[in-house]
């Protein structure tokens, strides 16, 4: 059973209007910003972005903001609670007739993986549990990026970070597997969850269009290919983002009321194609080739997609 896009068939259908303007202090080639730019085309301007500490905090630096919508910086650990406060206040003010309905806003949390996977987990869990009507957009660059690439629980096995260096004792660099935040979210039973990647704009826009039909927590996990932290040339972001998907390392999927569908079935290029482009994995190739580490990563990918085939191809 293959997934069909209903709204976005051609790239021309993606609105040309921009909602996130250029000129911010984010790094050149930021894959997360590209994903946000695409996401904002689905979200529009009647939005308040509720930000958690991370790279995107530098988007709105006084006296500038790249958004036509509103912005509230909260903390690293509680942006979803900020979303709760705004949503509740708008509801109450509209119900009491103090704010016209036309003034209503969509609430969008913007958090990096450090916030999303680690510090804000309690706050996020609470918001989903309370069925808060909001979007959560996580730009996942797989490390604490704004502080210079330290290990987060989104860092994949085999990546080198500033706090999980490659050493004689730990030749792989990071030894832990990436935390499966998608499944943690899914266990909370929100109506809509999706992963997206900036190199797949139609897939991304389609998912925002689908999500808009649901009231409640709507969660987007965006691959944020990161030239500064992953150590590749900023111009290669589209290629890196593409290979993350084509190697099967970053599955594009959604879960509607808990039911998972993979929205793109990659041909599973060898993971080396993706790994060797990035400085954070260079220690796997030189000075000596770490075959076992690469084989482990490849094996995880194969096992993942075998299971996808078993579960989803049955129907």
């Amino acid at each position, binding site marked *: 059973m293959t997934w069909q896009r209903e709204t976005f068939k051609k790239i021309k259908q993606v609105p040309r209007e921009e909602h996130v303007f250029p000129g911010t202090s984010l790094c050149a080639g930021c894959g997360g910003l590209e994903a946000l730019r695409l996401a904002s085309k689905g979200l529009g301007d009647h939005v308040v972005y509720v930000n958690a500490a991370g790279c995107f905090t530098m988007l709105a630096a006084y006296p500038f903001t790249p958004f036509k919508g509103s912005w509230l910086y909260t903390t690293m650990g509680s942006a979803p609670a900020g979303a709760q*406060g705004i949503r*509740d206040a708008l509801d109450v003010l509209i119900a009491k007739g103090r704010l016209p309905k036309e003034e209503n806003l969509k609430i969008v949390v913007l958090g990096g993986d450090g916030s999303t996977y680690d510090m804000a987990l309690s*706050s996020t869990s*609470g918001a989903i549990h309370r069925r808060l009507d909001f979007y959560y957009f996580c730009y996942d660059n797989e490390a604490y990026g704004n502080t210079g690439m330290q290990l987060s629980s989104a860092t994949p096995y085999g990546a080198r970070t500033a706090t999980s260096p490659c050493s004689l004792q730990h030749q792989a660099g990071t030894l832990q597997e990436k935390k499966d935040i998608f499944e943690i979210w899914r266990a909370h039973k929100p109506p809509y969850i999706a992963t997206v990647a900036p190199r797949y704009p139609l897939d991304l826009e389609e998912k925002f269009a689908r999500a808009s039909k649901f009231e409640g927590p709507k969660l987007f996990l965006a691959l944020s290919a990161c030239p500064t932290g992953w150590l590749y040339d900023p111009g290669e972001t589209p290629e890196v983002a593409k290979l993350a998907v084509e190697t099967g390392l970053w599955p594009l999927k959604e879960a509607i009321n808990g039911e998972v569908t993979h929205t793109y079935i990659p041909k599973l290029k060898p993971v080396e194609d993706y790994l060797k482009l990035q400085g954070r994995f260079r220690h796997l190739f030189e000075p000596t080739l770490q075959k076992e580490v690469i084989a482990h990563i490849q094996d995880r990918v194969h096992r993942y997609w075998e299971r996808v085939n078993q579960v989803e191809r049955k129907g």
Partner: protein
Amino acid sequence: MDGEMMTGNLAAAWGARLADVDYVPAFPITPQTEIIEALAKWCENGQMAARVVTMDSEHSMMTAAGAAGATGARVFSATSSQGLLHAFELLYSVSGWRVPLVLVNVSRALAAPITLEPDHNDVLAARDSGFLQIHAETCQEVLDSILMAYRIAEDERVMLPVIVNLDGFYLSFTREPVSIPDAGQVREFLPPFRPAHLGFRASAPHALGTAVLGGSIYSYFRHQIHLASMNALEAHEEAALEFNRLFGRRYGVVEGYRLEDAEDVLVMTNAFASKGKAAVDAAREEGRRAGLLRLRMIRPWPADAIRRALVGRRAVAVLDQNLSPGQGGILFQEIGACLYHEPLRPRALCSFIGGLGGKNISEGEFRATFEQTAEAGIRGKGIGPVLLYTEAEHSEMTQLQVLAAGPRPNGS
């Protein structure tokens, strides 16, 4: 006295109810929980038109409170002790957002060791956050202070959040007669919240809490908070006059007790000030010209009112129900600083630490405090910090230590 018998916690809930708040993000913690339980019940049965939401932590609670206030809702919340500290990061955010919400803190001493009864290390830890602070002595004052707090907080010259503090157990669970103000008169005292500079809405997008690059921008905004906080002294005075006109109760930023001819003055805050007043009466009966100054507003620091009350005295004793390890009493330092330049400053300033973790302060301890303060005044040299602790308490503690150590090997 007229009024209904109610606990300090219920009086706090009545304050929020009469203030007609829109939103109450909540999280339970002893000894505050009764407040949010009362509000949840009233909202459920329609006696209040607010939304109560139980959050996942005080950190989330304070974030939701600030964000809702920034959206234009009148917000109330309550916490205590560990909860206040868990929310601590947000205190600075909410004041920086210039959100005029009211937070009740029911004081409880901080872990470790973990305990339930009050002292003021929790609330005084927040003294630099930008929140205003009003500390209440009685259940009536809790209710009245919450109404005054909203009026001061929402004043255009101020636009800052307020903590109203009451002592856990001694006030939170103590029933006193409380006169409940008429709701119509409260509306006259506290007009509806219609902030000119807050609110997220589609037609007027704006960014709040943005990053700043460089200390000059940062300094400007934090100093604005300081200036706004200082404006609260005037706003408080105006609110107090109007409150007195409507309800017949007059509150100052400080309260003097038998100060007129007092030689020596004891400075206290919160519910234990009632014990202090009784001790003043006892000291007077013994022939001492003693008085008490209760600090009600801690932030902004009412330096002028404190100076007026304390200049020309022989000796002043500050009884801190808190302890800054390695320093001493927190309020003692602030009292000392604001008297330094007074030519007629007291001859001696004494620092006493008492009531930590809700420890009782006995008549004997008060008597010793007055004796030692008088001697210091005669000597012209202050003492302290002195921990108030009785011999009986010390010997009981020693026995507990023996029990904690357990039986020794060889029975030695």
